[in-house]
């Protein structure tokens, strides 16, 4: 029983078969195959450029998130300075989520860079194979009869087709990855936007769903640590008495 083949092998086989189906008349199809290969190579180059663009966009999002972290930290400090611990806690929770996400993004951008480098290497390899095919096709044209040429073309085309499919899949993975990362960065960016404390009094009451989610998401102990640190820096030795507007019935740490 043959094993169930997955996405990688299946796609490759499909592409190769498609290519070979075209190779019915060796004389004509040789040049046609080569033409197709060159077109694919152009596609690969464009694909790599797209990956680079997507990566740059991600890096921009990352630096925006970094700014958010600084902003939220400042806002927490302000809130605490005004004795509004609940608000400070909220800002720190958001900062915490953004920071965690940033760490993940940094690592993924690094991985993406490695993938990108591999793609560039693969493109070079594909180019070499296509060049080799070009040389071979001239030999085949000159030396072999139709039946034998057919076999040799199939062999040569398989080698190129496989390489092409390999690059294609690598590219698809890189694209999937950037899209996935972008969606995550967007989500965190939205959280931050929802937590813009332009008017400190406005958010003092009535926490919305986002706040509750954040509350669960962020590491409570990290937030407590941050709060304690800020208090020390602000010269507030002990936690201030619970602010009267606190509605969640939450005690001091």
């Amino acid at each position, binding site marked *: *029983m*043959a*094993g*169930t*083949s*997955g*996405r*990688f*092998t299946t796609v*490759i086989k499909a592409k*190769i078969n498609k290519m070979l189906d075209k190779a019915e008349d060796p004389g004509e199809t040789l040049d046609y195959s080569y033409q197709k290969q060159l077109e694919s190579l152009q596609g690969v180059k464009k694909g790599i450029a797209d990956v680079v663009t997507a990566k740059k966009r991600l890096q921009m999002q990352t630096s925006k998130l970094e700014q958010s972290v600084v902003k939220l930290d400042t806002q927490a400090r302000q809130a605490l300075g005004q004795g509004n611990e609940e608000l400070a806690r909220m800002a720190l929770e958001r900062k915490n989520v953004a920071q965690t996400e940033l760490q993940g993004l940094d690592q993924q951008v690094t*991985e993406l860079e*490695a*993938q990108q480098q*591999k793609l560039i290497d*693969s493109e*070079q*390899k594909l180019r*070499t*194979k296509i*060049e*080799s*095919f070009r040389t*071979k096709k001239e030999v085949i044209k000159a030396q072999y009869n139709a039946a034998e040429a057919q076999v040799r073309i199939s*062999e*040569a085309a*398989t*080698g*190129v087709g*496989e390489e092409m499919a*390999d690059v294609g*899949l*690598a590219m698809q*993975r890189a694209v999937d990855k950037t899209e996935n990362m972008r969606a995550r960065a967007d989500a965190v960016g939205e959280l931050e936007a929802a937590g813009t404390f332009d008017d400190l009094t406005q958010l003092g009451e009535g926490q919305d769903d986002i706040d509750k989610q954040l509350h669960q998401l962020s590491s409570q102990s990290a937030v407590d640590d941050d709060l304690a640190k800020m208090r020390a820096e602000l010269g507030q030795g002990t936690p201030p008495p619970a602010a009267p507007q606190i509605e969640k019935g939450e005690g001091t740490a």
Partner: protein
Amino acid sequence: MIVRVMSEGQYRLDEGHHQKLDELDDLVVARVEAGDENGYTTAFSELLSYVRENGEPLGPDDLEGSDFMLPPADLSFEEAANEFTGEGLIPDAPA
């Protein structure tokens, strides 16, 4: 036989390696099916290392097709779940 490691290249191995490759491949399948992520990572990297260590890399201008294709080294556990099922990617060696 020729084995391609995706995103990496092709290697030529003696037919004598077929059985060992099959064993390593089956181990990856078992780990994936057991939901053992760490085990998968180790087993998959062993499979690829075996190919690299025992195979001779094909030149970039070589136009031969591969007998087996293995996914790229950075294949995630989630992706592996779609790849490694049943007999795996390397069917059992002929008896």
